[in-house]
Protein backbone atom coordinates (compact mmCIF):
# COMPACT_ATOMS: atom_id res chain seq x y z
CA UNK A 1 0.00 0.00 0.00
CA UNK A 2 1.44 3.36 -1.01
CA UNK A 3 1.14 6.59 0.90
CA UNK A 4 -1.99 7.84 -0.83
CA UNK A 5 -4.54 10.17 0.68
CA UNK A 6 -6.66 8.69 3.47
CA UNK A 7 -10.34 8.06 2.70
CA UNK A 8 -12.18 11.39 2.92
CA UNK A 9 -14.23 10.04 5.83
CA UNK A 10 -11.07 9.63 7.96
CA UNK A 11 -10.03 13.16 7.08
CA UNK A 12 -13.50 14.45 8.06
CA UNK A 13 -13.51 12.48 11.34
CA UNK A 14 -10.10 13.76 12.28
CA UNK A 15 -10.67 17.48 11.63
CA UNK A 16 -14.37 18.12 12.05
CA UNK A 17 -14.14 19.24 15.71
CA UNK A 18 -11.30 21.69 15.03
CA UNK A 19 -13.08 23.15 12.02
CA UNK A 20 -16.38 23.46 13.84
CA UNK A 21 -14.78 25.07 16.91
CA UNK A 22 -12.95 27.59 14.75
CA UNK A 23 -16.12 28.49 12.84
CA UNK A 24 -18.19 28.77 16.00
CA UNK A 25 -15.65 31.22 17.41
CA UNK A 26 -15.29 33.06 14.13
CA UNK A 27 -18.82 33.46 12.72
CA UNK A 28 -21.02 32.47 15.67
CA UNK A 29 -23.61 29.74 16.19
CA UNK A 30 -26.15 30.82 13.54
CA UNK A 31 -23.76 30.61 10.60
CA UNK A 32 -21.29 28.00 11.82
CA UNK A 33 -23.30 25.05 10.45
CA UNK A 34 -23.54 26.49 6.93
CA UNK A 35 -19.88 27.48 6.92
CA UNK A 36 -18.97 23.95 8.05
CA UNK A 37 -20.90 22.44 5.13
CA UNK A 38 -19.34 24.89 2.66
CA UNK A 39 -15.87 24.17 4.01
CA UNK A 40 -16.09 20.40 3.66
CA UNK A 41 -17.88 20.56 0.30
CA UNK A 42 -15.02 22.70 -1.04
CA UNK A 43 -12.55 20.26 0.52
CA UNK A 44 -14.32 17.26 -1.06
CA UNK A 45 -14.27 18.96 -4.46
CA UNK A 46 -10.51 19.57 -4.35
CA UNK A 47 -9.49 16.46 -2.38
CA UNK A 48 -8.41 14.13 -5.23
CA UNK A 49 -5.98 16.77 -6.52
CA UNK A 50 -4.16 17.13 -3.19
CA UNK A 51 -0.64 15.79 -2.93
CA UNK A 52 -0.31 12.87 -0.53
CA UNK A 53 1.52 13.90 2.66
CA UNK A 54 0.00 17.38 2.48
CA UNK A 55 -0.65 19.07 5.82
CA UNK A 56 -4.35 18.26 5.88
CA UNK A 57 -5.14 20.21 9.05
CA UNK A 58 -3.53 23.37 7.70
CA UNK A 59 -5.29 22.86 4.38
CA UNK A 60 -8.79 22.47 5.81
CA UNK A 61 -8.28 25.39 8.22
CA UNK A 62 -7.29 27.52 5.21
CA UNK A 63 -10.58 26.64 3.53
CA UNK A 64 -12.54 27.27 6.76
CA UNK A 65 -10.75 30.60 7.10
CA UNK A 66 -11.93 31.66 3.62
CA UNK A 67 -15.49 30.51 4.25
CA UNK A 68 -15.59 32.51 7.48
CA UNK A 69 -14.38 35.60 5.61
CA UNK A 70 -17.10 35.03 2.98
CA UNK A 71 -19.72 34.83 5.74
CA UNK A 72 -18.53 38.08 7.28
CA UNK A 73 -18.49 39.82 3.92
CA UNK A 74 -21.99 38.73 2.97
CA UNK A 75 -23.24 39.77 6.39
CA UNK A 76 -21.88 43.24 5.82
CA UNK A 77 -23.74 43.44 2.51
CA UNK A 78 -26.92 42.34 4.24
CA UNK A 79 -27.84 44.93 6.85
CA UNK A 80 -30.26 42.70 8.79
CA UNK A 81 -28.76 39.64 10.38
CA UNK A 82 -30.27 36.40 9.18
CA UNK A 83 -33.45 35.89 11.17
CA UNK A 84 -33.35 32.19 11.61
CA UNK A 85 -32.35 29.69 14.20
CA UNK A 86 -29.81 26.98 13.55
CA UNK A 87 -31.32 23.51 13.06
CA UNK A 88 -29.77 22.33 16.30
CA UNK A 89 -28.81 24.37 19.30
CA UNK A 90 -25.10 25.05 18.94
CA UNK A 91 -22.78 24.19 21.83
CA UNK A 92 -21.30 26.98 23.94
CA UNK A 93 -17.67 27.90 23.61
CA UNK A 94 -15.71 27.58 26.80
CA UNK A 95 -14.29 30.82 28.07
CA UNK A 96 -17.18 31.74 30.40
CA UNK A 97 -17.74 35.25 29.06
CA UNK A 98 -19.96 35.55 25.96
CA UNK A 99 -18.94 39.23 25.79
CA UNK A 100 -15.41 38.14 24.94
CA UNK A 101 -16.60 36.09 21.95
CA UNK A 102 -18.77 38.99 20.89
CA UNK A 103 -15.71 41.28 21.01
CA UNK A 104 -13.73 38.72 18.97
CA UNK A 105 -16.39 38.71 16.26
CA UNK A 106 -16.33 42.51 16.13
CA UNK A 107 -12.60 42.56 15.28
CA UNK A 108 -11.51 43.36 11.71
CA UNK A 109 -11.51 40.06 9.75
CA UNK A 110 -7.75 39.51 9.55
CA UNK A 111 -7.17 40.26 13.21
CA UNK A 112 -10.06 38.06 14.27
CA UNK A 113 -8.83 35.19 12.12
CA UNK A 114 -5.24 35.57 13.29
CA UNK A 115 -6.12 35.59 16.99
CA UNK A 116 -8.37 32.52 16.62
CA UNK A 117 -5.74 30.60 14.66
CA UNK A 118 -3.20 31.47 17.33
CA UNK A 119 -5.16 30.69 20.49
CA UNK A 120 -8.07 28.43 19.49
CA UNK A 121 -6.37 26.40 16.75
CA UNK A 122 -2.97 26.58 18.45
CA UNK A 123 -1.12 27.35 15.20
CA UNK A 124 2.42 28.74 15.14
CA UNK A 125 2.86 32.15 13.48
CA UNK A 126 4.47 30.58 10.41
CA UNK A 127 1.43 28.30 10.00
CA UNK A 128 -0.96 31.21 10.53
CA UNK A 129 0.87 32.98 7.70
CA UNK A 130 0.34 29.95 5.45
CA UNK A 131 -3.35 29.60 6.34
CA UNK A 132 -3.99 33.35 5.86
CA UNK A 133 -1.69 33.69 2.87
CA UNK A 134 0.41 36.42 4.48
CA UNK A 135 3.90 36.67 5.98
CA UNK A 136 4.75 35.31 9.40
CA UNK A 137 5.45 38.89 10.47
CA UNK A 138 2.02 40.07 9.28
CA UNK A 139 0.42 37.20 11.20
CA UNK A 140 2.26 38.25 14.34
CA UNK A 141 1.19 41.88 13.87
CA UNK A 142 -2.45 40.89 13.39
CA UNK A 143 -2.47 38.80 16.56
CA UNK A 144 -0.78 41.59 18.48
CA UNK A 145 -3.21 44.22 17.24
CA UNK A 146 -6.20 41.97 17.97
CA UNK A 147 -5.03 41.38 21.53
CA UNK A 148 -4.54 45.10 22.07
CA UNK A 149 -8.12 45.81 20.93
CA UNK A 150 -9.57 42.94 22.93
CA UNK A 151 -7.90 44.22 26.07
CA UNK A 152 -9.49 47.61 25.46
CA UNK A 153 -12.94 46.29 24.61
CA UNK A 154 -13.11 43.52 27.09
CA UNK A 155 -12.14 45.05 30.37
CA UNK A 156 -13.33 42.50 32.92
Amino acid at each position, binding site marked *: *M*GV*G*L*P*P*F*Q*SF*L*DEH*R*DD*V*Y*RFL*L*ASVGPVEA*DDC*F*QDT*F*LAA*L*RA*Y*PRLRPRSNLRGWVLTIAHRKALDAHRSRRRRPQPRERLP*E*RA*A*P*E*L*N*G*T*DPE*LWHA*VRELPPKQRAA*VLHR*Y*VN*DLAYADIGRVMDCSEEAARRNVHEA*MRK*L*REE*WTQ
Partner: protein
Amino acid sequence: MNDLTTMLKQARRSDVAEHASAVASSFSDTAAGSGMVDVAYTTMELPVGEVLVAATPRGLVRIAYGDFWDAEEALNDLAARISPRVLEVPSYFDGVRSELDEYFAGKRTSFDLPIDWSLTGGFTRKVLKHTAKIPYGEVSTYRDMAAAAGSPRGARAAGNALGANPIPIVVPCHRVLHSGGGLGGYGGGLEYKKLLLELEGAL
Protein backbone atom coordinates in the same frame (compact mmCIF):
# COMPACT_ATOMS: atom_id res chain seq x y z
CA MET B 1 0.31 34.47 30.08
CA ASN B 2 -2.56 36.69 31.09
CA ASP B 3 -6.31 36.28 31.65
CA LEU B 4 -7.21 37.10 28.09
CA THR B 5 -5.06 34.43 26.45
CA THR B 6 -6.18 31.93 29.08
CA MET B 7 -9.81 32.68 28.28
CA LEU B 8 -9.21 32.37 24.53
CA LYS B 9 -7.34 29.10 24.95
CA GLN B 10 -10.19 27.65 26.99
CA ALA B 11 -12.17 27.51 23.76
CA ARG B 12 -9.96 24.58 22.73
CA ARG B 13 -11.64 22.54 25.41
CA SER B 14 -15.17 23.41 24.23
CA ASP B 15 -17.15 20.25 23.87
CA VAL B 16 -18.26 20.53 20.27
CA ALA B 17 -17.89 16.83 19.39
CA GLU B 18 -21.55 15.89 19.52
CA HIS B 19 -22.69 18.89 17.52
CA ALA B 20 -19.83 18.61 15.03
CA SER B 21 -20.70 14.95 14.49
CA ALA B 22 -24.34 15.84 13.74
CA VAL B 23 -23.32 18.62 11.34
CA ALA B 24 -20.85 16.23 9.69
CA SER B 25 -23.65 13.68 9.09
CA SER B 26 -25.82 16.23 7.39
CA PHE B 27 -22.78 17.28 5.37
CA SER B 28 -22.45 13.66 4.20
CA ASP B 29 -26.04 13.61 2.96
CA THR B 30 -25.52 16.91 1.13
CA ALA B 31 -22.26 15.61 -0.35
CA ALA B 32 -23.94 12.43 -1.57
CA GLY B 33 -26.50 14.58 -3.40
CA SER B 34 -23.76 16.73 -4.93
CA GLY B 35 -22.36 13.93 -7.10
CA MET B 36 -18.90 14.40 -5.60
CA VAL B 37 -18.82 11.20 -3.56
CA ASP B 38 -16.98 8.58 -5.62
CA VAL B 39 -17.34 5.77 -3.07
CA ALA B 40 -20.12 5.71 -0.46
CA TYR B 41 -20.14 3.10 2.29
CA THR B 42 -21.96 1.97 5.38
CA THR B 43 -21.85 -0.88 7.83
CA MET B 44 -24.78 -3.11 8.71
CA GLU B 45 -25.46 -5.92 11.13
CA LEU B 46 -26.49 -9.15 9.36
CA PRO B 47 -26.69 -12.82 10.40
CA VAL B 48 -23.06 -13.19 9.22
CA GLY B 49 -21.96 -10.41 11.57
CA GLU B 50 -20.94 -6.84 10.84
CA VAL B 51 -20.79 -6.16 7.10
CA LEU B 52 -19.15 -3.28 5.25
CA VAL B 53 -20.91 -2.36 1.99
CA ALA B 54 -19.45 0.13 -0.48
CA ALA B 55 -20.81 1.47 -3.77
CA THR B 56 -19.82 3.84 -6.54
CA PRO B 57 -22.37 5.69 -8.71
CA ARG B 58 -22.14 2.63 -11.02
CA GLY B 59 -23.10 0.07 -8.42
CA LEU B 60 -21.96 -2.14 -5.56
CA VAL B 61 -18.19 -2.35 -5.53
CA ARG B 62 -17.19 -4.01 -2.25
CA ILE B 63 -18.65 -6.13 0.53
CA ALA B 64 -16.46 -7.17 3.48
CA TYR B 65 -17.37 -9.42 6.39
CA GLY B 66 -16.20 -12.43 8.36
CA ASP B 67 -12.51 -13.11 7.79
CA PHE B 68 -12.74 -10.63 4.90
CA TRP B 69 -13.56 -8.03 7.53
CA ASP B 70 -11.02 -5.33 7.98
CA ALA B 71 -12.95 -2.14 7.39
CA GLU B 72 -9.95 0.14 7.58
CA GLU B 73 -7.95 -1.90 5.10
CA ALA B 74 -10.95 -2.18 2.78
CA LEU B 75 -11.53 1.59 2.86
CA ASN B 76 -7.85 2.40 2.31
CA ASP B 77 -7.87 0.02 -0.62
CA LEU B 78 -10.93 1.73 -2.13
CA ALA B 79 -9.29 5.14 -1.63
CA ALA B 80 -6.14 3.98 -3.40
CA ARG B 81 -7.75 2.03 -6.25
CA ILE B 82 -10.92 4.01 -7.01
CA SER B 83 -10.82 7.49 -5.47
CA PRO B 84 -9.99 9.05 -2.08
CA ARG B 85 -13.45 10.64 -2.07
CA VAL B 86 -14.76 7.83 0.15
CA LEU B 87 -17.56 8.86 2.52
CA GLU B 88 -19.87 7.09 4.97
CA VAL B 89 -23.44 7.71 3.77
CA PRO B 90 -25.83 5.26 5.48
CA SER B 91 -28.93 6.73 3.78
CA TYR B 92 -27.48 5.80 0.37
CA PHE B 93 -27.90 2.11 1.22
CA ASP B 94 -31.55 1.83 2.22
CA GLY B 95 -32.33 -0.27 -0.87
CA VAL B 96 -29.28 -2.51 -0.43
CA ARG B 97 -30.07 -3.00 3.25
CA SER B 98 -33.62 -4.14 2.57
CA GLU B 99 -32.53 -6.54 -0.20
CA LEU B 100 -29.93 -8.11 2.08
CA ASP B 101 -32.44 -8.34 4.95
CA GLU B 102 -34.92 -10.08 2.65
CA TYR B 103 -32.22 -12.44 1.40
CA PHE B 104 -31.25 -13.48 4.93
CA ALA B 105 -34.93 -13.88 5.85
CA GLY B 106 -35.23 -16.36 2.95
CA LYS B 107 -37.60 -14.03 1.11
CA ARG B 108 -35.34 -13.04 -1.77
CA THR B 109 -33.59 -15.33 -4.24
CA SER B 110 -31.85 -12.76 -6.43
CA PHE B 111 -30.54 -9.23 -6.06
CA ASP B 112 -31.63 -6.29 -8.18
CA LEU B 113 -28.44 -4.36 -7.43
CA PRO B 114 -26.18 -2.98 -10.15
CA ILE B 115 -22.55 -4.02 -9.80
CA ASP B 116 -19.38 -2.03 -10.39
CA TRP B 117 -16.73 -4.57 -11.46
CA SER B 118 -13.85 -2.12 -11.42
CA LEU B 119 -11.96 -3.89 -8.61
CA THR B 120 -11.70 -6.97 -10.82
CA GLY B 121 -10.05 -7.60 -14.16
CA GLY B 122 -9.16 -10.23 -16.75
CA PHE B 123 -9.78 -13.86 -15.87
CA THR B 124 -11.04 -13.00 -12.37
CA ARG B 125 -13.74 -10.77 -13.75
CA LYS B 126 -14.80 -13.44 -16.28
CA VAL B 127 -15.04 -16.10 -13.58
CA LEU B 128 -16.99 -13.80 -11.26
CA LYS B 129 -19.42 -12.74 -13.97
CA HIS B 130 -20.22 -16.41 -14.65
CA THR B 131 -20.50 -17.01 -10.92
CA ALA B 132 -23.06 -14.20 -10.71
CA LYS B 133 -25.33 -16.27 -12.98
CA ILE B 134 -25.50 -19.38 -10.78
CA PRO B 135 -29.11 -19.43 -9.55
CA TYR B 136 -30.12 -19.39 -5.89
CA GLY B 137 -30.12 -22.81 -4.27
CA GLU B 138 -27.89 -24.33 -6.94
CA VAL B 139 -24.16 -25.02 -6.92
CA SER B 140 -21.40 -25.28 -9.50
CA THR B 141 -17.73 -26.29 -9.45
CA TYR B 142 -14.37 -24.56 -9.82
CA ARG B 143 -13.79 -26.63 -12.96
CA ASP B 144 -17.07 -25.50 -14.55
CA MET B 145 -16.40 -21.86 -13.74
CA ALA B 146 -12.91 -22.14 -15.25
CA ALA B 147 -14.35 -23.71 -18.38
CA ALA B 148 -17.05 -21.05 -18.63
CA ALA B 149 -14.34 -18.39 -18.42
CA GLY B 150 -12.51 -20.09 -21.30
CA SER B 151 -9.85 -22.00 -19.40
CA PRO B 152 -10.98 -25.63 -18.91
CA ARG B 153 -7.80 -26.57 -17.04
CA GLY B 154 -7.87 -23.53 -14.82
CA ALA B 155 -9.79 -24.89 -11.83
CA ARG B 156 -7.13 -23.75 -9.41
CA ALA B 157 -6.94 -20.28 -11.00
CA ALA B 158 -10.74 -20.10 -10.82
CA GLY B 159 -10.48 -20.89 -7.10
CA ASN B 160 -8.08 -17.98 -6.68
CA ALA B 161 -10.38 -15.70 -8.67
CA LEU B 162 -13.31 -16.62 -6.43
CA GLY B 163 -11.15 -16.06 -3.34
CA ALA B 164 -10.53 -12.53 -4.62
CA ASN B 165 -14.25 -11.80 -5.02
CA PRO B 166 -14.70 -8.20 -3.87
CA ILE B 167 -18.49 -8.56 -3.58
CA PRO B 168 -19.26 -11.82 -1.74
CA ILE B 169 -22.88 -12.81 -0.99
CA VAL B 170 -24.23 -10.70 -3.91
CA VAL B 171 -21.78 -12.31 -6.34
CA PRO B 172 -22.39 -15.80 -4.94
CA CYS B 173 -18.93 -17.34 -4.82
CA HIS B 174 -20.30 -19.53 -1.99
CA ARG B 175 -22.18 -21.52 -4.67
CA VAL B 176 -18.95 -22.83 -6.20
CA LEU B 177 -17.68 -26.15 -4.76
CA HIS B 178 -14.95 -28.71 -5.44
CA SER B 179 -15.58 -30.93 -8.44
CA GLY B 180 -15.09 -33.92 -6.11
CA GLY B 181 -18.04 -32.79 -3.98
CA GLY B 182 -16.15 -31.10 -1.13
CA LEU B 183 -17.13 -27.62 -0.01
CA GLY B 184 -13.87 -26.09 -1.21
CA GLY B 185 -12.62 -22.90 0.37
CA TYR B 186 -14.13 -19.56 1.31
CA GLY B 187 -12.16 -16.40 1.92
CA GLY B 188 -14.60 -15.17 4.53
CA GLY B 189 -14.39 -18.38 6.58
CA LEU B 190 -15.86 -21.76 5.69
CA GLU B 191 -18.60 -21.52 8.35
CA TYR B 192 -20.12 -18.63 6.39
CA LYS B 193 -20.11 -20.61 3.16
CA LYS B 194 -22.04 -23.35 4.97
CA LEU B 195 -24.43 -20.83 6.51
CA LEU B 196 -25.25 -19.30 3.12
CA LEU B 197 -25.68 -22.67 1.39
CA GLU B 198 -27.94 -23.90 4.21
CA LEU B 199 -29.97 -20.71 4.03
CA GLU B 200 -30.48 -21.34 0.31
CA GLY B 201 -31.36 -25.00 0.89
CA ALA B 202 -28.38 -26.20 -1.18
CA LEU B 203 -26.85 -28.23 1.67
